[in-house]
Every structure is written in C-alpha cells, then in structure tokens.
C-alpha cells in the first residue's frame, strides 16, 4: 500500500471518526434530552395520579367517618352491643353505602363477623379478620386492598374506622373501586395509564382503558420485578412495529401491609421522540457523508502533494537498490522533504564514492591474495629446483665421476617440479578462464549415479572405507552444461572424501523443491564451524593441507552461471551437507535461447 493511499486512508478514517463522534454526541445529547422530557411528563402524570389518589382517599375517609359518626349508626351499634340480633341489620350497609356513594361498605362485629355488607349482602356471618390479625395500629389513611366480591377480587381503596360503643368495637370498612381514580386522570397524548391489580390469590389483571395496550410479556416481567422488589422500575417495551417503542414506568402502590397490592403503570410512547431522533440521525448522517466526501477529496489533493517527493525519493532509492547509482531527486522546497532530498542526494554521492573505494580496495586485496597464493604455490616447487641445481653444480665440482648419475637424478627431479609448476599455473589459468556453459537437458539422477559409480573403487579402499547411499527422487531434467555440472559434483565428492579420513557414509540425494531440482551431498565427517561455512566459497580459501582453495569457488561460479544456487550446512562433528539447486530444463526456452552464450531463460515450475 502506497504512502499516498495510507495517508488518504488515515485522513479519511480520522475525518470519519471525528464526524461520527460529533454525530454520536449530538444524537446522545438529543436522546438524553428527550428522555428527560419523557421523565418529566411521566413524573407529572404520576403526580396527578397521586393527587387524585389522595383526593379519592380523603373522600372515602370522609364518607366512612360520616357514616361511623351518624346517629343511625350509633343507634344501630348500640342496639347490636345490647344484644340485638345481627340478622336484623343485614341490609343496613347498603343504605349507608348509597348515601356516601361508596362501592364497598362492611359493618363488622367485634369478632370480625360481617353483620352487613353493601357490596355482597349474601356474605353476612362470615369472618373478616385481616385487620384484627394485623400487628400494630389500624391504618389511619386510605389504603389499597383487594375486596372479595361476587364477581371476584376487586382492587379498592378502603378506609377502616372503629365505632366504639359500650366497650365494644364495631368496624366499618368502606371504599371505592380504583377505577374511579383511573377515570379521573386524563393523560396527555402519548401517555397511557393502567393499574395492575395483584390479588393475594389468583392471577393479576390490568385495569383501565389502556390495559390492552400495556399487556405484554415484557410488561408482565417488569410488573413481577416491581412486586418482588417493591420499588419503582422502568423498561422499554418494543411493540414490534417500526418506531413503536414505549417506556413503561412501574410504580408500586402501597397497601395496608408490606405486600404490594397493585402497580401503577405509566406507558410513554416513544414514537414522536424516536421520529425526531431518526430525523436528527439522518441529518447527521448526511452532514457526515458530505464532510467525509469533501475531506477525502481535500485530503487526496493534500496527500498527493505531500507524498509526491517522498514517492520520488522511494523511486530513487529503488533505482539505487537495482544498481543505478546515477539517479538524483529534485530538491524543491526547504521543508523536511526538501532537506531529505538533499540529504538523499548527498548520501547517494557518498555511497558512490565509498563503493568505488571499496571496489578498488577489494581489487587490491584480491591481487594481493592472488600474489600471495601464487608466491606460496610457486615457492614450493622453486625450492627443490634451486636445491637440485645447486646439487648439480656441487657434484660437477666435487665428484665429477658421479656427475652423470647425479645429473640424471637431478634432471628427473627438475622435470617433475617443472611439471608441478605447469599444473599450478594451469589451475590458475582455468580459474581465470571459466568457459561459458553449453546449456542442454541433463538427467541429474543419471549424472549423480555415474559419479557415484566412478568413485566407487576409491571409496571402498581400506582402511578408510566409505559407504554410499543413493536417495534419488523423481526429478525432471535440469538445464545445464553436463561437463561443468559433473565437475561440480566430482569436486563436492572429492571434498567429502577428504572430510572423512576415518571413513564414513556419503549420501547422494535428489528431489524437487518449489522451483528447482535439488542435489544434496551429505558426509559424516568432522563438520565445519559456522565461520568456515561462511568463507568456504571464497577463492583460495581451504581447510585442507593440500589444495588451491579454488575448487568450491569454481563450483559456485559454475552453479551461478547456471542460474542455480549452492549452499552448505554443517554442524561440528556431525557432518556436512552441500545443497545445489538447479533450474528445470524447458525445451521451449532452450530453443528460444539459441546460443547458450546469450544466457538461457528459465521457466519456474
């Protein structure tokens, strides 16, 4: 990925992130503001409900207290206290309830027996002791409780008052259905109110005009939570359709005991808020989209301007990397990029100078090394030559009678040493005049097998007997000069034999890797150190007593001329392995290449 692309991407991401963050912030703030408004609306409605609740409670208290204090009630309770039969007063409560507009009114005896019930006259005689069995004083205020009626349990707001006469307490429990409180509330648009009635026995039910809308599994879950925790809670109810969400506030309503008899549900439809939030979001997205688009265009232009000199620097560096040391970059501007270009040009100039100095010093070193090796090689045969000539001269002066015999011996020695000199000079000549490979298809396995067979006699010679092992894989023909490649293999075999003076095993292996046919030769000799491995292919470097140090250098030169690669791996005392990778032969490329001197072309498999 180019610098320009990276910069463009970075700027685009930055702009997008910034705009997105701003849009998110706006939406979040708007959402919070809407929620605050929603909570205020709900709080207002709850406050209205509580006012109505208290007002209704006051009305009920007034009605029950008026009844309890009436002359007729005092007369009735007086008669009852004096032993009058309860049966005579079975229908008393209905009259009082009608007068005070109470939905429920029970006149209860001191032992809890119902003397008269306005809402369920047939229930006379049955005991109602929940307020007698309750610990603590009787509730002074109106409270919620479920009242048993003929139609089932009904949630009511009740007031309990005692009528004390002749030392006996008679009780009046009066109240109204909670429906009246609900009906008195007029919720604003979007708000709905319902009451969940939770009787002590049996299933609960929703009351009020919005009961159908507020009944859902999630609402029921919320109600159960409030009933269990006895504290207010809220939940968002998804009503399925788009934008049909509602925040449901559930508020526990107090009863005469710790148990929550009912839950006030205030549903606040989020339709308008969600619509508004959606609009804000859409506007934010449009603004963000436009901002990102403009940002990308602008950043594209800017990054193009910024990255152009850097790109040219990179191109110049690439050229230098490919060996084109003459490349230069423009030095426009005085900013960091401009200074970088100047520095680059200076660095390039300096590198060129250093390279020339390095080549020169290497050349000198090579000549020195060549001269040292040449002197060393030539010095060995020259010393016997000198001795032989001096011996001849001494024999002619001191022992002329033995001169002929000495002459004959000396001339043979001279000829041998001269031949030796010729050999040395020939090797140096060969190294200096490496022939160009004549490329053709070579059966690598066959060649390896032939070389192994050639050295079989030498390898089996005692006492340093060397075993061979051939692990030849299915490799195609390689592209190369069979004579030169054979010399490489033979050279490697000779080195291996020298590395195993005590005998061992020599393994020939061929196989294919991803691109090349590979030949490996492994010995079980003393192995090489890493330093020795690094220097092994350097000309005139040798680890042997006898040798020119040119064998592996020549092998590397041959393999390199074949566009192959030779390497060595070794561990001390564990043997050494040479790896030779050779390109696979292709008839088409061989034909196209025509003359091998022009250098073959290779197809990678």
């Amino acid at each position, binding site marked *: 990925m180019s610098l320009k692309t990276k910069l463009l991407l970075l700027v685009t991401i930055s702009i997008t992130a910034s705009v997105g963050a701003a849009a998110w912030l706006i939406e979040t703030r708007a959402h919070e503001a809407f929620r605050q408004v929603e909570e205020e609306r709900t709080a207002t409605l709850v406050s209205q409900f509580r006012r109505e609740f208290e007002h209704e409670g006051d009305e009920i208290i007034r009605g029950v207290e008026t009844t309890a204090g009436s002359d007729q009630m005092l007369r009735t309770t007086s008669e009852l206290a004096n032993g009058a039969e309860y*049966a005579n007063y079975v229908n008393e409560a209905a009259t009082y309830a009608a007068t005070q507009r109470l939905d429920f009114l029970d006149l209860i005896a001191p032992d809890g027996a119902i003397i008269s019930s306005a809402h369920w006259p047939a229930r006379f005689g049955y005991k109602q002791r929940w307020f007698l069995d309750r610990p603590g004083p009787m509730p002074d205020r109106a409270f919620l409780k479920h009242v048993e009626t003929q139609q089932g349990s009904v949630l009511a707001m009740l007031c309990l008052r005692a009528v004390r006469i002749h030392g006996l307490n008679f009780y009046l429990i009066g109240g109204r259905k909670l429906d009246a409180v609900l009906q008195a509330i007029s919720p604003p648009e979007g708000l709905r109110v319902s009451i969940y009635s939770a009787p002590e026995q049996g299933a609960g039910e929703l009351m009020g005009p919005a009961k159908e809308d507020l009944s859902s599994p999630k609402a029921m879950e919320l109600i159960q939570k409030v009933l269990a925790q006895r504290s207010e809670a809220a939940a968002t109810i998804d009503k399925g359709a788009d934008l049909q969400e509602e925040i449901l506030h559930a508020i526990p309503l107090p009863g005469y005991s710790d148990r929550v008899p009912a839950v006030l549900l205030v549903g606040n439809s989020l339709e308008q808020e969600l619509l508004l939030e959606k609009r804000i979001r859409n506007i934010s997205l449009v603004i963000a989209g436009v901002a990102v688009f403009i940002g990308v265009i602008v950043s594209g232009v800017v990054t193009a301007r910024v990255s152009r000199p850097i790109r040219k620097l990179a191109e110049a560096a690439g050229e230098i990397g490919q060996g084109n040391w003459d490349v230069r970059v423009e030095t426009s501007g005085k900013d960091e990029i401009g200074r970088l270009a100047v520095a680059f040009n200076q660095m390039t100039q300096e590198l060129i100078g250093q390279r020339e100095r390095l080549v020169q010093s290497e050349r000198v070193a090579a000549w020195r090394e060549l001269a040292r090796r040449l002197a060393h090689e030539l010095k060995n045969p020259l010393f016997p030559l000198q001795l032989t000539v001096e011996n001849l001269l001494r024999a002619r002066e001191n022992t002329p009678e033995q001169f002929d015999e000495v002459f004959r011996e000396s001339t043979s020695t001279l000829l041998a040493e001269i031949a030796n000199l010729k050999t040395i000079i020939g090797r140096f000549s060969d190294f200096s005049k490496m022939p160009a490979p004549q490329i053709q298809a070579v059966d690598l396995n066959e060649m390896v097998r032939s070389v192994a067979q050639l050295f079989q006699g030498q390898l089996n010679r005692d006492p340093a007997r060397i075993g061979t092992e051939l692990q030849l894989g299915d490799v195609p023909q390689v592209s190369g000069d069979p004579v030169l490649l054979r010399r490489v293999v033979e050279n490697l075999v000779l080195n291996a034999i020298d590395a195993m003076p005590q005998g061992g095993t020599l393994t020939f292996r061929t196989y294919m890797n991803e691109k090349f046919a590979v030949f490996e030769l492994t010995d079980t000799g003393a192995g090489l150190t890493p330093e020795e491995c690094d220097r092994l292919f350097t000309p005139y470097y040798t680890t042997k007593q006898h040798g020119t140090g040119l064998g592996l250098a020549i092998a590397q030169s041959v393999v390199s001329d074949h566009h192959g690669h030779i390497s060595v791996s070794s561990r001390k005392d564990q043997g050494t392995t040479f790896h030779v990778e050779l390109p696979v032969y292709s008839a088409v490329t061989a034909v196209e290449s025509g003359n091998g001197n022009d250098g073959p072309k290779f197809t990678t498999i």
Partner: protein
Amino acid sequence: MKRLLSLLPAISSVLLLSVLAYGSSRPRYGGTVRILLHDRVMSIDPLSEEDHPAERDRLAALTFETLTTTDPAGRVRPNLASFWRPDPTKRTWQFQLHIAYFHDGTLLTAADVMASLAKSNPGWKYSAPDRQTVVIETPTPTQHMPELLAMPRYSIVKRQVDSAGATTLIGTGPYKLSQWQAGERAQFSVNDDYRNGRGFPDTVEFQMGVSLREQLLDRQLGPNAAAEVPVDQLRPLEQTNQALAVSRPADLLAIAFLQGDSSSRPGRKPVDPRVREALSLTLRRADISNALLQRKGVPASGLLPQWLTGYEFMFPAATDLQRARDIRADAAAYVVIAPIMLAYDASDPLLRQIAERIAVDAREAGIVVQPYGEAHVNSKTARASINADAVLLRLPLESVEPSVALAQRAEDLGLGDNVPAILGATRPEDLFEDERKLLENHRVIPVAHLPQAVWLNNTVHNWQQLPTGEWQLDQLWVEGAR
C-alpha cells in the same frame, strides 16, 4: 250493693264501647277492594303454565270453584260437591253436586264437571250416573281424593269456544271477571246470584307487577286494601304496627337441578350427584332463614314443612364443610367439576340474595356457583328452555294434606314418577319413605320454608288466609265502602 253501684259507671262504659265497636265492625256491602300483587299473572286459567301460579290461583279463586275446599283450620269442606263417597279400595270416588250456576246462567251439571276434570287430569276415568253425580275412577288407590280436588288445578271451569276460536272461561264463583289486562290489571265484579250469597264489595281489583317501592308509597298514600309483602320486608312493617296477614312457612325454597340433554342445554351434563350432595352440605340454612328471611322462614331439610308432616327433622340439614370438601374432592377425582349455573327469578330480589348466599356458602367447599337472574324459571316449560344447571325455586304449598302436597311438589319439581305411590300412602312412615326417596339423590336441595305475607289496610275486614297462604275473600268487606 254499694260495691255494685260503684261499678255501674264502668259497666256502662264497657257496654257502650261494645255497642259502638259492633257498629263499626258490621259488614257493609259495596265499594271496591284494591289489592296489589308483586308478580304478573298472564292468565287466570287454572291449567295455564304460569310463572307465578300462586298469584294466578288467588285471582282464579274469585271466579272458579272446586268440588271441595279447605277451611282456615285445614279441614276439607264441601263446595260444589255436597258430599262424596269412596269405594273400599279408594280407587272410585262418587261426588254429589250442589245446585250451582255458571256466570252465564247455565246450571252446573255432571257433564261440565267431567269435562273440566278431564282437562285437569286426563289419567282418570269419569262417569256421570245422573246429572248431579260424578264418579271418578283412578288407576291406583287415592287416599285423599277430596283434599286433592280442593287444589286450584281441579277448579271447575266451563270452556266456551266462540266462532273466532277464542276460548272463554266461565266459573261459578262469587265474582266474575269484568276487566282483564294480562300482567297488568284484573277487575272482578260481584256475582249477585252466587249460591252462597252475594259478596260484600262490588268490585275486587288487582294491580299486578307493582314494585316494592311503589307498594310502600301506595300503602301510605293510596286507597289500597292489601298488598303482597316479601318476607324480608316484614320487620319494618311490624315495627310500625302495620296490619299483616302472614301464613305458616308453607312455600318451599329449594334448589332444583335440571336434567341434561334438553334442547337449550346442548352438551351440558347434569351436575354430579356427589357435587350436589356437597353443595347441600355447605348451605347455612339457619343463616339464610335468620338473616335474609328475617326469621320469618325456617330452614328446610324436607320437601314439606315440619308443621305439616312432623317428620322433617329426620332429614339432615346441618352444615358440614369438611365433609362437603371431601365429597367434592372425591368427585373431582372422577369428573370435571364445572361451575354450577344457578338461575333464579330475576323479578324477586330476595331470591337473588339467597342465590348469592348459596354461592358464598358453596365457595367455602370449593364449589363454584354462579347465580344469575332469569325472567321465567317457575314453570316446567320455562325451565326446559333455560341454560342453567339448577334453579332456585319457590314452590307454593297447594294442600294441607301431606300426601297431596308432596305429590304436587314432586310433580312441580319434575319428580312425578312416584306420585301414584305418594297419593296411595296410608301411613306417615310410607310418606316419609317416599319423600326420602325423592331427596336421596339430591336432585332437589331444600333450603327454607317461607310464609306468604300480606299487608292489610286497617279498613279491611274478614281477610282469611289459609295455612297454605291461599286467600279466601268471599267474606271480605271494607269499611267506608260506598
């Protein structure tokens, strides 16, 4: 002597007051007697299917007479029949007729009686040895034929069909029907030619379907002579010393379970007998009688009241909630116990309260009873067409003869299979056994026996009410009548 002289003024005062009292209590002819009825009567035909047969019979008794009648002491007296004679087997009864005339002036004959009785009871055989003698032959012995024939359903009615097909009912009673608005108003004019002498009032007028509130207003303000009063309203009237005529607790208040498979109750199964028994055990009859009936009713355990049979106490009526729960649980192991739909007469607030109390009591044993008001529940025809499991019925007592009364109640309750045996019972033990059989499967659960009550204006005299609650108004007269 001195002492006698000193008492003379006091004796004179007593004599004077007695003379004055006699003068004010002497019957007077003329005037109109207005009577308020709570229920509406649609026909005065004694054989008509009426929701309120007791009221129907009160109207019909002015116009139609039976062969025999019952006096206020409950004894059978001759009426249209002058005397009667059974054969030893009590299967054949011979009645000799009085000389009597229908309101159209025709003489009452044995043929008229046979035609009328054949309508009332087609199962009997009738014959007329002469114009004034009627012989009735029954398939089984009937011990109390005279008491049976005193029942209103055996009234002698001459039915005349005119050319338009309309039937006119003609009787022999002290009053003739002069104006008729079904369910609203009935006016009877005195029969001047009545064989036992002319009635005192010229007219007797009935206003029907008057609510309790209207009754109270009219009692205080209107010129009414009498008005029916529900038993739960008696106490305040008694406290204000109003004149009341209250019968013995004769009416039976009972839960009658309907049988399944009627056309109006498709797929509705009869209530399981165990559930019926459990329901019976939940009832707090004493509470119902004491509170709702204001002690004017008595708890009922039998179909006939204790004062009539003397053996009602032998039927169990105690509340036993634990046993009721056990029986219900036992039933629940075998059948699905559905709520019991209990219908009651929607026009009677007292029945509504009692039905609701039954539901409250039943709830204590886990039995769900759902009371609801029906416009028509009392007649068999009406009961066959309502979609209820049971009906809360108020059945009038039609005879003071136990076997006749039991037979009639069995028939009214749809348990008429044993009627011949009941009518043939000669000993109280047999009657007890018959009644026990009627009650043993709890198809009928007696709740209470109720009296019938009438408020009377102080100007009304000789208002006679039989123990059954029936009215006998032939000697009625009103003060200040013109």
